[in-house]
């Protein structure tokens, strides 16, 4: 065990590419007074290469990513992107035989830890209702983090459930490079999901823990005329709803 933790935060290209997502994550880290080494601001984890079928090229790319991380000398890493998370946890060792030698956490796990340790505290909103959208990457495709994000949100407001949630939660339509290949189809999927699952839940706040879900649900919500929705990535939401000391 190293004496002192050196925490890396891997930003991921989707968060870096969307100013409000980046602002939300950085805002959280500042407010929570997290000491961290920023990583992946100009370097992709390699997932898009795998999703495009460029397996061989991804093999060379991940060596660059590994070097970037090893040079940073971190002992633990957090990322808010489920796809980066899965890449480090599963893709690196299973597809490329790379052991990073430190643990990678998803932001949801990190938030649970900070709350449990009393390092952050959320403002209590008595009348606020939130619906949580399960991203596939940390849900059914990954470690099944369904209760954890809900428990974080429940310390702040009432969490209401869609009929289909958790492992069977319907997809936002934003993954698998669909936002690149058929953006209108991706957004139509998000719109349909919100109408089917969230329109009659008595809330206009959707929180999720994936930059792709956040962007796609935001675009889908933008096409709904019946009601406006506010879609948050978890870091953004926590940054806005944290007690400041």
């Amino acid at each position, binding site marked *: 065990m190293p004496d002192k933790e050196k925490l890396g935060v891997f930003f991921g*290209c989707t968060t*870096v*590419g969307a100013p409000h997502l980046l602002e939300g994550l950085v805002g959280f880290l500042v407010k929570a007074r997290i000491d961290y080494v920023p990583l992946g601001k*100009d*370097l*992709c984890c*390699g997932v*898009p*290469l*795998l*999703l*495009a*079928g*460029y*397996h061989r*090229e991804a093999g*060379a*790319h991940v060596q*660059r990513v590994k070097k970037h991380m090893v040079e940073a000398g971190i002992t633990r890493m957090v990322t808010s992107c489920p796809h980066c998370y899965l890449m480090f946890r599963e893709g690196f060792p299973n597809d490329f035989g790379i052991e990073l030698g430190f643990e990678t956490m998803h932001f949801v796990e990190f938030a649970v830890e900070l709350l449990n340790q009393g390092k952050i505290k959320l403002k209590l909103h008595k009348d606020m209702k939130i619906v949580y959208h399960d991203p*596939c990457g940390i849900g*059914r*495709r990954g470690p099944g983090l369904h209760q954890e994000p809900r428990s974080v949100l429940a310390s702040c407001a009432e969490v209401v459930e869609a009929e289909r949630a958790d*492992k*069977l*939660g*319907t*997809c*936002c*339509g*934003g*993954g*698998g*490079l*669909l936002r*690149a*290949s*058929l953006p*209108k*189809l*991706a957004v*139509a*999927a998000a719109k*349909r*999901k919100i109408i089917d699952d969230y329109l009659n839940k008595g809330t206009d706040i959707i929180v999720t823990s994936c930059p792709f879900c956040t962007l796609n649900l935001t675009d889908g919500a933008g096409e709904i005329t019946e009601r406006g929705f506010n879609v948050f990535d978890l870091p953004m939401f926590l940054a806005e709803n944290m007690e400041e000391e």
Partner: protein
Amino acid sequence: MSGNAKGAETTEDINKAFNAYKRKIYRALKDDFLKTALERAVSSFRKNRDAALAAFPEVEGKRERLLEIKDEVICNLADYVARAREALERNHAKTYYASDASAANEILADIIGTGKTIVKAKSITSEELEFNSMMEETGNLVWETDLGEFIIQLLGEKPMHILAPAVHVPRERTAKVFSEVAGREMPTDPEKLTMFAREFLRDKYFSADVGFSGANFITADTGTMFLIENEGNIRFATNAPEVHVAVIGLEKLMPSLSDAMLGLEVLMRYAGYLVTSYVSMISGPAKTGDIEKITVYGAHGPRELHVIFLDNGRLKAARDPDYREMLRCLRCGACMYECAIYPLVSGHWGYHYMGGIGVPWTALISGGLTKAAPLAYSCALCGRCKEICPAGIDSAKLIERLRRDLKREGLVPGFIRKMAEAVINTGTPYPKED
């Protein structure tokens, strides 16, 4: 180098194909008829399936047992085909092996010939052969007898769901096309529309020369095909004409009658039925020995039964450790109803096979890599279908694997290639523009 020139051509072709596909998908997104019909279909499917699974909770255990059986069969397909053929021949049926669609069509041409009328049961496998147009080209007349297929045939369209071919057609459109055939105004009442189809098709069964069908399962021990249905058209089509011809994909093989019964239960429940109205089990032509124990074939049912086993890429898929999973598909259609993408565009996302599972089926069985390439980029890879599928097929994983094959063959659409090259050259898919 000529290799490069060919590569460039392929890239251009794939971009053209992708752009045409994109236009089609975006048109479908604007189709209000489609939207209405799919919304109705998805919501009734969900209700029915929940009810069927709640009424028979033990189906979950049966599903697991079925998977073990199917996986064993997939690993020994050739052996099971040989056993099923032997059993059928013993039962006085004629059997054939078609390595691909054109071989199957040659066999069909030999059996059916020309100038015949064919009554046809719903069969997605027959789409691989483009059966209807092949038969019409050789001077035959085909009547689709499944109500959904009949509607599609009259509309001149293609099936948009493996179980519910006319899933995208709302009653208003059906009434319109039936009115044209009937020469009088038809109401939009589903009952009246169904009665019209019933009357229209009734005498076709008895005047037809050939009945054509697929099968949901076929057993290796007895050569028995299982045909599951609700409408009763399959019973007529496979029973009234003198000749019954069946084309059966190799993945439909089951070791024994009791295994097929297990498959039957699982398939019905996951397709949203407590029980279907009919299951026909056909093992040979009709026969009698009632006059002096002398066997005469063609008592009341067909005199001849011809069974064509269709490979068309299945054996190759079965040998691949990733792709073999797709042969588990029971065609319950649940993955398509429950998909985030499919209900928005229906079978426009597909070729003969549709939706996520349809992508590897298009690539390996019916269509080929070029047809599959645009389809492979329509999936959000969310993996929800794996949770829904009774056979646990991970279509997202199969599509990821396919994208690797597409890359190797130079069939990556331009914008995907650009993004990948940006990662390779600059480290990120969104390089800063300065």
